[in-house]
């Protein structure tokens, strides 16, 4: 199973195995990782699954679709170049070792 590392805004780090096909949001929620809420269950409705993706991992991601892009505008924490909604990232083998940072607020 691909390994994903979640680093909180205070620097706390957790690495968990995420089932292939599950999202990075689901990986956090199912493994009790703090910092990702996922209030709408991954339906692109809430922007409470906002993460900053580490540079090394960015090239492995599919480009975001326009709905994710517009939803990110409503995220509670500032949007950055590497902002993504983690419910939209379905984990594949090439994401093994990816690190995402969670914002201070969701």
């Amino acid at each position, binding site marked *: 199973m691909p390994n994903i590392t979640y680093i909180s805004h205070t620097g706390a780090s957790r690495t968990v195995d995420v089932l292939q096909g*599950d999202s990075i949001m*689901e990986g956090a929620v*199912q493994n009790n990782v703090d910092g990702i809420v996922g209030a709408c269950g*991954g*339906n692109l409705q809430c922007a409470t699954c906002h993460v900053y993706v580490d540079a090394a991992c960015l090239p492995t991601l599919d480009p975001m679709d326009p709905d994710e892009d*517009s939803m990110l505008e409503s995220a509670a924490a500032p949007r950055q170049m590497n902002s993504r909604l983690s419910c939209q990232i379905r984990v594949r083998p090439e994401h093994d070792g990816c690190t995402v940072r969670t914002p201070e607020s969701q």
Partner: protein
Amino acid sequence: MTGARCGRRSLSNAVSVVIVGGGHGGFQAAASLRAEGYDGSITIYGEEPHLPYQRPPLSKGMLLGKQEERHAILRPAEFYATQRIEVVRGRRIASLAELPPSDWVILATGARNRALPRDGVFYLRTLGETAEIKQRLADARDVAIIGGGFIGLEVAAAARALGKDVTVYEAGPRLMGRVVAPVVSDYFLAQHEARGVRVVLNSTAAPEADLIVAGIGVVPNDELAREAGLAVGNGIAVDEFLRTSDPRIFAIGDCAEYPNPYAGARVRLESVQNAVDQAACVARAICGRPAAYDAVPWFWSDQFDIHLQMTGIATGFDRTVTRGDVASNKFSVFYYRGGELRAVDSINRAAEHMTARKLIAARARVTPEQAADESFDLKSAILAG
């Protein structure tokens, strides 16, 4: 209302909150209390055998086999252990007198499906019912859906996607008629028919089929409140702070009837947004920061590949205008009442839906002419307020 002193090391360990109902609202109330720094005890009593879960996947991805039970479960057991939230499962509370003494009680008992007076009909609200319907769906050739509301239509779409022969029987003259404008009903009727779903309107027939599923509305679970002598209307009656007639007892989510500032009326809503935001509002009140509940209502429904997103409260609308071309499968409908924008439904227009939430929250003035004019920048109206 004097609240617990959350986020400070104080006497707060002596404080306790009891939550009745382990669904979306009950879970969120507990999670929000901890997020607010509430340090006292939290106990959730839920009659279902599962840890708290979300219901939207039940009529969508789970029927299609795209999502499993673990995707619906909101948090794993470790969450409740680390957050010191006690979840008592499989326990139905029959009277508030059964509860241990506590400083606050939150009623989050939800609603139950309205039942038809006949056998052989299935209903969808719980994980158990979903598993049962999914299994029967596998063996069924034809499926009858009674009720052309959100849940009925989502089940119809899933069954059709699985190749079943599907007929929807709706008692009213149009689909989702209680909540959407005719233009939206007509659009969904055409889309379902185009994908091979038969729709029979104005029908109270008792159909026969290998599988019959009814989604004909819900009844709020307000018996505990009635028995305790609390005020009850269409659900457990609460004030703008979501307090029942006993200020120590709150009610949230599907079971609660509250004054909604966007509707200008008392309403009872059935949505994830409503349950989650009301839970957070009550958590803040318990932590000594009460504020009138004022969150913008929003809701979604997925049928086939069509995303319907709604915001505001359309009830009592006297005019609608459509923005965009219905034939393009991407449009929004703006609902007006007495000249004021009250609600917006968006079909396959997620960005416009997000703008619409802000317009509704800001009570923005957008004239029907501006709404219909795609060259008018809706965002400029948010800033203008």
